[in-house]
């Protein structure tokens, strides 16, 4: 068992984990109220892996993750307001409503994105690390992905390339034992995923992803090692998600008793126990951490709710950067308007009409298929 850190650190760890838990619970609720659309993947149960990792990263280190990354952004310091607003598809969201739950992004805090393609973020992580190395900076990139992603071609390609080029990446598998409804025994020939490092000649280690102090301890050792030696490593954090893969998961692939068993190892409750027993935190500290999380999340929902929808005129914005080398782009080739000089900002009539037709159709679909409450 790792040593209990100082009071401020414990408060910080507890605060972040409580915030993620509350945020995710509330996101699930808002999804059922149809405030958030699309897919919603919650990380409840995985808080220690997330917060343990980010708490030992430097501010200039890069973090990149998957479609289950509301928590990762929160842990990096992205305001809950902006994340909730993104879930609501609002203009004030982290991606202005263009990305949604699976595509949270905050460059300022070096959270380099959530990505909806399983394994798609691995090459990007190597690219971020390559840029650091190219510029002789000693920043490290932490790349988080699932057990399922460890079977993708990207995993093999990227691990090899990162090892070959000695790129400063900590690859961190959030092994929650399932890729959607397929258990690890049914999807991976080697179930101790840390062993997958061997084939690439790099270090691999399995850690307890439910214990925030162990995660801190071990990830910080890996960060240090990668930062100084300039070689990647693989950490497999053993963890679990209590909720379904996404909000639309009837969970027919596992027993309720298994979920119960893992709940006994709850990363937040166990950390509280350790801190209170140690005396570093009091029951009041714990209560105020929970209260603060409640307040932040409540405010986030309010913020998201009163934020404006993205204006339809902005449909074609941010698609391209216009400049010296390309002075214009046609926002819709079908437009009979003159083509030169069309910029995203002033989409022609036709493009606007198209956008509005789509929007009309969508609200119609919503009326027909989306009752106020989902099961």
């Amino acid at each position: 068992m790792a040593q209990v850190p100082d009071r401020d650190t414990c408060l910080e760890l507890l605060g972040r984990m409580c915030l993620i838990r509350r945020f995710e619970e509330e996101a699930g609720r808002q999804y059922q109220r149809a405030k958030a659309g699309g897919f919603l993947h919650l990380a409840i149960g995985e808080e220690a892996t997330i917060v343990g990792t980010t708490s030992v990263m430097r501010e200039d280190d890069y973090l990149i993750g998957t479609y289950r990354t509301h928590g990762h952004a929160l842990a990096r310091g992205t305001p809950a307001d902006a994340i909730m607003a993104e879930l609501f598809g609002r203009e004030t969201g982290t991606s202005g409503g263009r990305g949604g739950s699976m595509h949270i992004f905050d460059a300022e805090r070096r959270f380099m994105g959530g990505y909806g393609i399983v394994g798609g973020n691995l090459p990007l992580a190597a690219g971020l690390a390559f840029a650091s190395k190219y510029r002789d900076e000693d920043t490290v990139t932490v790349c988080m992905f699932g057990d399922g992603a460890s079977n993708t071609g990207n995993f093999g390609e990227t691990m090899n390339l990162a090892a070959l080029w000695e790129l400063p990446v900590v690859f961190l598998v959030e092994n929650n034992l399932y890729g959607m409804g397929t258990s690890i025994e049914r999807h991976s020939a080697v179930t101790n995923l840390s062993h997958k490092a061997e084939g690439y000649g790099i270090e691999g280690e399995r850690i307890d992803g439910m214990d925030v102090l162990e995660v801190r301890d071990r990830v910080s050792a890996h960060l240090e090692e990668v930062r100084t030696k300039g070689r990647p490593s693989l950490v497999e954090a053993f963890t679990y998600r209590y909720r379904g893969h996404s909000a639309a998961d009837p969970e027919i692939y596992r027993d309720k008793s298994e979920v119960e068993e893992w709940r006994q190892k709850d990363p937040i409750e166990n950390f509280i126990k350790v801190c209170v027993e140690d005396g570093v935190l009091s029951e009041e500290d714990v209560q105020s951490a929970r209260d603060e999380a409640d307040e932040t999340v409540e405010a986030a929902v309010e913020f998201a709710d009163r934020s404006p929808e993205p204006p339809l005129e902005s449909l074609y914005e941010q698609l391209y950067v216009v400049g010296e080398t390309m002075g214009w782009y046609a926002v819709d080739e079908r437009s009979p308007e003159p083509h030169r000089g069309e910029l995203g900002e002033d989409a022609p009539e036709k493009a606007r009409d198209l956008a509005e037709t789509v929007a009309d159709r969508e609200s119609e679909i919503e009326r027909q298929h989306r009752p106020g409450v989902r099961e």
Partner: protein
Amino acid sequence: MMAEIRMREALRDAMAEEMRRDGNVFVMGEDVAVFQGAFKVTEGLMEEFGEKRVRDTPISENTIVGIGVGAAMAGLRPIVELMTVNFSLLALDQIVNHAAAIPYMFNGNARVPMVIRMPGGGGHQLGPTHSHSFEALYLQVPGLLVACPSTPADAKGLLKAAIRDENPVIFIEHESLYGIKGEVSDDEDEIVRFGEAAVRREGEDVTIVGILKMAHVAEQAAAELEEKHGISAEVIDPRTLRPLDLDTILASVRKTNRAVIVEEGWPHGGVGANLSTLITEQAFDWLDAPVQRVTGADVPMPYSRRMEQAAIPHEENVIEAVLAATEGAIGPGKGGS
């Protein structure tokens, strides 16, 4: 100053000049450094810039492109060479789901200034896995720019522009054009801007649009049409397909009232299919005949020399299409329309 150089040299010079100008520009790809490129386009680059900036990669297309995307997001300017367009299919995920989508899906908070170069096209008996033309595939993707140069000067000017541009660029080269020579400026500031078509030959009776090698085939056909059939063809090379300089093409069609589009790619959903629709939608009233398309055959590219040549458009096919479009309405002894 102008000098006559080959297309591959023009491309190399473009990269070398931009690498000298900007330390963030680097080149990576399979066999680009020690081997100097499968088509020798990166010749001499490793010698000048070293292995840090000219990097051989493992055979991992999706990851090579993905590293480029990540590096670009962090502020570098990668040039990724994929050995052929057929191999770029292994990187489609990073190209379409990541490079093209990221700027938009993160609301402009991330940018992907990178160039992905890839040679394609048939004519070398490389069969059904090494000879294709995927301009139409890439031109469909919002978020990408697509360049398809046909001359050494355009190759250099467009590649320089692509490297300086803030968007992800698919830069398609034709394997048969690497050796052609042309006058190229050595002015390091000269670029060819995206979205500006080149009128290769002025004419009155029909507009022929051709890309890559087919831009040359179109020009040769136009010369023969003039000589043998008394038909004056205007030849346009769009040079970039995204953005597409539709203005220049439409202006020409409104003048000639006929259009023929020539490409090496497949007919279904091709460059010509797209352009023909645009012309029909926007210049219908000016058309005197249906738009004609000359394309590659609708098969995976066969190996046999005879069959391969039959699967690729030639001057005769263009001439035939022009004659079909003009239906004998133009030319000596046939009178005006």
